[in-house]
């Protein structure tokens, strides 16, 4: 057996194995990884005809119309843990010659109000629809309350109405969700 050759083999392979290492790294940084995606998502929309505000059968004004929808994704504990803020954006286009009060009441399953947003919409005309914007930004504390809700009650109030009233109140809306996902 060629001892010199064997020694050479062991020397070279030892160098290979022993010098290998992970230098200048800090794997504890993995604990600092935070995902902060910002998600844009449509919310609700509607087209309320002026005729919705008048009861033609009984010849009476209908000053308040409302509708409710579940928003199941808001009430989950998963979203509650990672949602750090949200911007609600509402765009009203009004061609009815009346202003409106509009409220968005976020309710729990038991219809307890968790967060209320209210705004007014300027009157417009069919020839000149008026656009009104309403933005509500919620911080982490406010969003914690809102995520206790499971549904939203939308109430549209008109100060007065008549059977001759024409036009449409259009709403488009979206929400920007600010998420923070960490270990």
């Amino acid at each position, binding site marked *: 057996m060629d001892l010199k050759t064997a020694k050479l083999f062991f020397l070279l392979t030892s160098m*290979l194995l022993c010098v290998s290492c992970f230098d200048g790294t800090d794997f504890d940084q993995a604990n600092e990884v935070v995902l902060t*995606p*910002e*998600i*844009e998502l449509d919310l609700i*929309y509607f087209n309320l005809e002026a005729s919705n505000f008048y009861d033609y059968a009984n010849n009476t004004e209908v000053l308040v119309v409302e*509708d*409710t929808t579940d928003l199941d994704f808001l009430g989950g504990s998963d979203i509650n843990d990672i949602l750090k803020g949200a911007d609600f954006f509402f765009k009203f286009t009004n061609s009815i010659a009346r202003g409106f009060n509009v409220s968005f009441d976020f309710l729990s399953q038991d219809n307890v109000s968790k967060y209320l947003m209210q705004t007014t919409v300027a009157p417009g005309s069919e020839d000149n629809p008026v656009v009104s914007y309403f933005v509500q930004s919620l911080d982490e504390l406010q969003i914690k309350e809102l995520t206790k809700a499971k549904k939203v009650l939308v109430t549209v109030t008109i100060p007065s109405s008549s059977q001759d009233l024409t036009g449409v109140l259009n709403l488009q809306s979206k929400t920007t*969700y600010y998420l923070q996902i960490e270990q």
Partner: protein
Amino acid sequence: MKKLLFIYLAFGLSVAVSQNKQLLYNWEVTPQTLMLNPGALVTNQFHAGIPLASQFHINVGSSGVSVFDIFADDGVDINTKISNTISRLSSRDFFTVNQQLDVLNFGWLSKGLEPMYFSGGMYQELDAIAYFPKDIAILAWEGNREYIGKAYDFNDISARADLLTVYHFGVNKQVSKKLTAGVRLKLYSSLISVSSTRNKGAFKTTVREGSANIYEHTVTDLDVEVRTSGFISLDGLEQSQVRKKLLGRALLGGNLGIGIDAGITYQFDNELSLTASVLDLGAIFHTKDTELYKAKGDYTLDGIELIFPELENGEPTIPYYDNLEDDITREIPVDTLNTGYTQLRPTKINAALHYDFGRFVGDNGGCNCKNNGTKQKRVSQAGVQYYSIFRPRGLQLAGTLYYTRRFGNTLSIKTTYTLDSYSAKNIGAGMFLNIAGVNLFLAADNLLQMSNLAKANSVSLQVGLNYILN
């Protein structure tokens, strides 16, 4: 000395980390050379790999990012480094893990009118590849807010992982003075397999004039599929039961497949030769314990439209949200199937041109008569090697320049320079030690990065112990 060898091997195994086996191809290491080219020139009469130690190989690689890129202790916020890495990587970048453990490997020269070298054995293999799902990573990391109008492509999702055992038997024959050819039959037994490689469709958030709401969130032409085999029967089992089940599958109890390796060596003259091989040309037939998840369809979401219905007292409101969920489920149904499927093995191709030069190894300088007339080895060999493997997104290629130097019959050193998807500066070296028929080899590449593995895009180290009778 042999005890020392065993201790050394055990140590080597414990630190060994490393698909392309450019260092082992057409080298002295008989069992592994035959596994890489069934038509390799065989100069021995018998070989037996030490059970579970004849070869251990693991390759960990990433084509576009190193551990250092993310975890460098440089004061830069790790989230910034991840953001920069996501921006830099493309959906063609990939991460791979390939590990093989030779359980048994043996071979013998069958003398007679038609001398042939038979070889066989069994090895375990783990092979995984995941392409970087860039669009999905952007969506998860940053969301869609800054990317209105961008199509997030589901085709970016492409990954596959297989754990299997392979039983093989090959025959190698010197057909003529110039040509040696070989073929190897393989029987695959899949332990676990998961893959999602044929996905298409896109998700996009757009602003469109005349749309019902502010945005349109569209899923277009979605067709995604995840195929699993070997998982559902493990669900809920205890660890010991899982081990027992996997062991049964390893012993030909899994989903079976069949494949073939073939190769040649052509000796132009005393100096110049050509070798080529095709490996794992075959498929596994997943017929039992399969579960496939498929989602297919198109959908446009523009929020929830309120219609303010006139409700009588106590009349429930319209279940807008439930209706929306029902719509999505109807338009993009997610099906769970238990149908079988066939999966091609990742076929590899090797080819090389070799040039021998320098004086002859040993003293006699003449014909090695045990070697069916092939010429005795020279001290030096240089050449160029080609390697490719069929992956879900097409071929991955590597080219290697190498030089082999033999020091008597005891030591052989091979050095390589390889250009591949991982690196343009991959220098490798291997040492082969022969002590009284006991052969120990160790081979590693990316040596320039060995001093700090964190900076390496891939690491490859192979060790093995065999007994060879010349």
